[in-house]
Each structure stands twice: as structure tokens, then as C-alpha cells.
């Protein structure tokens, strides 16, 4: 459905290992935390790709690598065909403007001592040659586009509610007209009714500006509402990826099934098979042999204990890593 041309972000075989050192300073690493372990995905123009998984699955580390807050240990991250690690000077600044982020907690992501106008205008002041009145004009139109009163430009963050703060964070992310916005749990710190407002706003902004989202989330209902495609992560790997509707209607990996079963539905009568996972997430330092999910998988059989399943296409556009297929 898409050519090579509309691929914006592309990660291929990306790994990120963090060293675990002993207490002796400058000693070499004793072991490695396999935070992200061979992950590949693409973000196309105008679409939302979600990375879902539970804490420790590597979704946030992946987001940080896209934002160049961490450098991959191995593999390549490209933006419009250009290797991120090779970007310097103006090209690096362009990239930072093209890929922006909105974080989970609008209480800590906003500078409490900056008025909204300065906070939203800061990227413009740093990256463009606009004059102060031009910046102020842009800030006002950004505030309107996120549903805030332009007069609130003079406010400090503490004068806003949680939902309004998240709108301010989105306005700042949009200031430089980005092509991709990384949304790291954008509504999980908000109340239900406010979360709905923000999710609707994010969809409207995407529709009017044609930007792409890389959504990091653990709530599957949020993911289903916002995504075009979904990649499920477990212990540093993507275990299943498909178009959003396909993934939720027809999940193939046992972990995806367990996640969907654990996500609580509010439709009375709709009953999923209850899959309760036993045990805990294994350590990312000492990964289990074979399939990394076998320690908790209700369907594990002999092969799963010894051989790592291949990540392969099981239907058009639907990939999974499981010996059952």
C-alpha cells in the first residue's frame, strides 16, 4: 500500500544494550541489559505506528533512540534514508525539528517558570529567524489549534489543568511543523474524560496536518483508538506486528492474546478468553533460551524451550514470532 518514498522513519535490526558494571569504577561491564534487541519497524507518512508492551519491554528506549536521546548499540536508524548517527550541523537541527515528542506527564514536562508564550515559542526562537512579533503570532495560532484560548499565552503551567498542560506540550511539539511526533504515553496520566479530549485532538491534528505519530503506550484501548499499525514488544523484541484492526481481531502471538485478554473491556456480554499469565517478566540481563516468552506462555511446548522462533510473515502485513505458526 505504500512505496519506499513515503517511509519517514526506518529502524532496522536496532539494538540497545546497557552495561551492568561492578562497583569498581572504570571496570568493564559485567553483563548487559538487553533493553532493545533486534527491532525493526517503519513509520510512514501520515500514519500512526504504536509500540505496545509492559514495563521493561524496551518501548521507551526505542522512542529515545528515535529522538536521538540514546545511540543504538547496533543496527541503523534512518530518517528519509539518512542515517541518524551521521547527521551533523544544520541537518541534525533539521532532524530535531522534524521529529518532536510529547511526554507522559505534563506536570514535569513543562517548565514551571516559563510563561506559555515563551515555552511554546522557544523552539521557534532557537531554530528560526522569526522576529518576536512573528513568534507571538505563531504561538497564538498554535494555541488555537490545540483548543486553548490565545489569551492563555501569558499563563504559567500551574494555572492550567492536566489536560490543558498536555495541550500546551502538544502545541510546543507542533511549533516547528514536525513530520513525526513521538507520543510517549500521552494520556495515561490524565483522567478518563480529559484523556478522551486529548485523543480526539491528536486525531484531528493528524488529519489536518498529515503528520505521523510513533505512539508508545501500554493501554491497548488507547492504542486501538489511535493507531493504524501496532507492534507488540516483549523483552526487547517485537513479537507481533499488524494493521491495528487485524491485530485486535485476529491476534496470533500468545502474548498479544494475553495482553488483549488482560485489557479490561467495558462492553457487557463481550467476553474474551481469560488468559492469566503466570510468573514474572524474566530478567533482560539473562534472557531465557529459546523463545523469550516461553517461561510465561500457556501454550509453550518442547521446541519453544530450545529454539528461538523466527519473526515471519503469517499473513500479508501480519508478522509474528511464534512456533505455533
Amino acid at each position, binding site marked *: 500500500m505504500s512505496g519506499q518514498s513515503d517511509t519517514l522513519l526506518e529502524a532496522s535490526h536496532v539494538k540497545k544494550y546497557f552495561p551492568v558494571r561492578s562497583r569498581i569504577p572504570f571496570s568493564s561491564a559485567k553483563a548487559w541489559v538487553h533493553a532493545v534487541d533486534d527491532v525493526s519497524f517503519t513509520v510512514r507518512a501520515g500514519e500512526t505506528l504504536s509500540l505496545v508492551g*509492559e*514495563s521493561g519491554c524496551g518501548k521507551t528506549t526505542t522512542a529515545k533512540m528515535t529522538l536521538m536521546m540514546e545511540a543504538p548499540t547496533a543496527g541503523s536508524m534512518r530518517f528519509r534514508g539518512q542515517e541518524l548517527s551521521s547527521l551533523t550541523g544544520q541537518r541534525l537541527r533539521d532532524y530535531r525539528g522534524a521529529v518532536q515528542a510529547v511526554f507522559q506527564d505534563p506536570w514535569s514536562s513543562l517548565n514551571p517558570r516559563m510563561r506559555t508564550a515563551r515555552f511554546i515559542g522557544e523552539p521557534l526562537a532557537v531554530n528560526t529567524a522569526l522576529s518576536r512579533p512573528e513568534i507571538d503570532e505563531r504561538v497564538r495560532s498554535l494555541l488555537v489549534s490545540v483548543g486553548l484560548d490565545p489569551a492563555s499565552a501569558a499563563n504559567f503551567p500551574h494555572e492550567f*489543568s492536566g*489536560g490543558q498542560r498536555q495541550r500546551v506540550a502538544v502545541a510546543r511539539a507542533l511549533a516547528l511543523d514536525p513530520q513525526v511526533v513521538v507520543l510517549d504515553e500521552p494520556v495515561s496520566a490524565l*483522567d*478518563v*474524560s*480529559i*484523556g*478522551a*479530549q486529548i*485523543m*480526539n485532538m491528536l*486525531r484531528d491534528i493528524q488529519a489536518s496536518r498529515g503528520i505521523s505519530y510513533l505512539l508508545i503506550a*501500554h*493501554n*491497548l*484501548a*488507547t492504542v*486501538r*483508538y489511535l493507531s493504524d499499525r501496532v507492534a507488540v514488544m516483549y523483552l526487547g523484541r517485537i513479537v507481533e506486528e499488524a494493521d491495528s*484492526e487485524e491485530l*485486535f481481531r485476529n491476534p496470533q502471538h500468545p502474548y498479544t492474546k*494475553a*495482553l*488483549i*485478554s*488482560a*485489557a*479490561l*473491556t*467495558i*462492553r*457487557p456480554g*463481550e467476553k*474474551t478468553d*481469560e488468559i*492469566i*499469565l*503466570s510468573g*514474572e*517478566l524474566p530478567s533482560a540481563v539473562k534472557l531465557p533460551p529459546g523463545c523469550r516468552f516461553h517461561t510465561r506462555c500457556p501454550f509453550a511446548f518442547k521446541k519453544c524451550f530450545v529454539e528461538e522462533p523466527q519473526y515471519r510473515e503469517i499473513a500479508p502485513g501480519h508478522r509474528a514470532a511464534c512456533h505455533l505458526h
Partner: protein
Amino acid sequence: MTILDSQSLESAAAPARDDDVVLRVRDLKTYLYTKRGVGKAVDGVSFDLRRGETLGLVGESGSGKSMTCLSVLRLNPEPASRIVGGQILLRGEDLLQKTDSEMRTVRGRRIAIVLQDPMTALNPVLTIKDQVGETLRLHQGLRGRTLWQRAVELLKKLRISDPERRLNSYPHQLSGGMRQRIVSAIALSCEPEVLLADEPTTALDVTVQAALLKLLKDLQREAGFPILFVTHDFGIVARMCDTVAVMYAGKIVEKASTATLFRSPAHPYTQALLRSVPDVLVETERLASIEGQPPSIFALSQGCAFAPRCPHVMDRCRVEYPSEIRLAQDQTVRCWRHA
């Protein structure tokens, strides 16, 4: 559909099974006293909790659901807040009439609580053994070998693997799910008559949450204690609760059996709230969001607190708070549209 005063309403609610009521809360009022003035955090809340029942207390932040829960144990922060009225009847005994030392024999033994964050609920410098043992020592007078055996038994009951080793661990050595099981073990150690659960799974991952909810349900089925389950998540309500009370700005605006509430919510707030959550099992075209913000409990008007955001608002709503209206055997609502 008739308007009843609260007295006759309650007698109509439970005529036959009155002796099943373990906890009865009547017209509870907990106010906040701050520089900004008086905030009505809990403003006339009433509910019954029967044997084996799970009542969900749902609402958004600031609706007063946690404050209600804490007030039942008289653990609301003082002097910032004070319980200024009402009754909390545990099998007929009014907890608000008890002295502080009498309350200490109620907390942990007769009414137990599980809080949201297991990391802050546990003491980081004491072993699990010390913390599980504390309640058993205090309330049941167990010592030495019997204390240890009882602690091991408890952990086994909570499906914690390798209990002997866990008892000698410190909280930081355990995962979040394990910690919340330990907290639940402490809460259930004295076989309480009532369990209060204040968002016990919010800090947990979804698969771990599912396991803990199932465990609580199984233990409840075995022992029969009622649970007051405070949550903002309708998904948890659907899975855990028999009845639901929806709170808005310190008041219960709708109370119904879970099935009824999901099938035919009567209060405009409940209706809007249910339409504003996406669901994992069905595709949602567009979420209906509730415009505006919840009101400040420090500046509540005479009328219905939801009136400024309500799509069906009438003149009467702005001047007079709706009384409780019974729609069915298992549903009451505070909304003038149903009067």
C-alpha cells in the same frame, strides 16, 4: 419513578437481607479546611456493603472516591480534612463514635486496606517477614514458630512462590506485582470483615493486574468478605464489581448494579464517561469527550455540580441539587431529568 427521601429509599433498597450488611455508610461528610476555604471533598455519601459483595466507587481525580475510602477507616489526613457528619456502621457499631485506641483494633483486623502504590505502602528497610508479622503479632498475638508458619501459609495463599525465601527479602528485591501481593497478604492476614481497595492495580502492568484481580476474586469467594473497590477504570468495574457508585464532586450521582449501569446508564455524567473510554474489543469511530473541567469542590454552586458540563441541563439544575431518584430495584440516580 418517585422521589424518596434517603431514609425510605434505603429501606426499600434492602428489605429482606438487612442482616447481610457488613458496612453501612450514611450521609458521610468529609470536608477539607485550607487557606482557600472549605472544600466539600465527601458530601453526603451513603452506601451499603453486603457480605460477599464488591462495590465499585468510580470517579475522576478529585471526585472524593479515595477520601471516602480513607474516611471509612478514619485515616483521612488531619487537620487538613475532618469528618463533619454522618455514620459509618460496621455491623451496627458507629466507627465515628470510637476512641482512637478502639479504632486501632478495627484497622487491620476488622477493616483492612490495600493502597495504590505497593512501594510506598511497604517499609523499605524492613524485611517482608517483619511487615507481614507485624499485623499477626499485634492483632493475633502470634509469636515465634507459629508466627512464621502463619506467614508462610499466608504467602502461599496469595500464590507467592518460594514463600520462605520471600519472607527474608526486602521490598526492593521484589517485583511490583509481588509487592502488591505482599500488601494484600498483610491486609488479609487477620481475616478482615471488610476489605477496602484504593486503586490497588493502577501501578501494575496489565497482565499482572489481571492476575491480581483474579486472585482477589478467588479469595473473596472463599472467605466472603465484601470489597469496596475504588477505581477510575470502568474495565475493572466490569470485571470485579457487583454494584457501582459513580462519584462526581463529592457526591454519588448514580448507583446501580454493574450490568444495569453498563446497559442503561441514567446520569448524563455516567453516560458521557462511558462514551469517552475507548474499548479494546470494538472499533471506536470517535470518542465523545466531556467538554470543560470538573468543578472545584471549594466553589460548588447550589445546583447540580455537573450542570455546567451537562448537555441536558435545565433551569432547575442550576438552582437545586437533585435528590436521589429510584429508577429500578437496582438503580438510583441524582438527576432532575428523571424526576
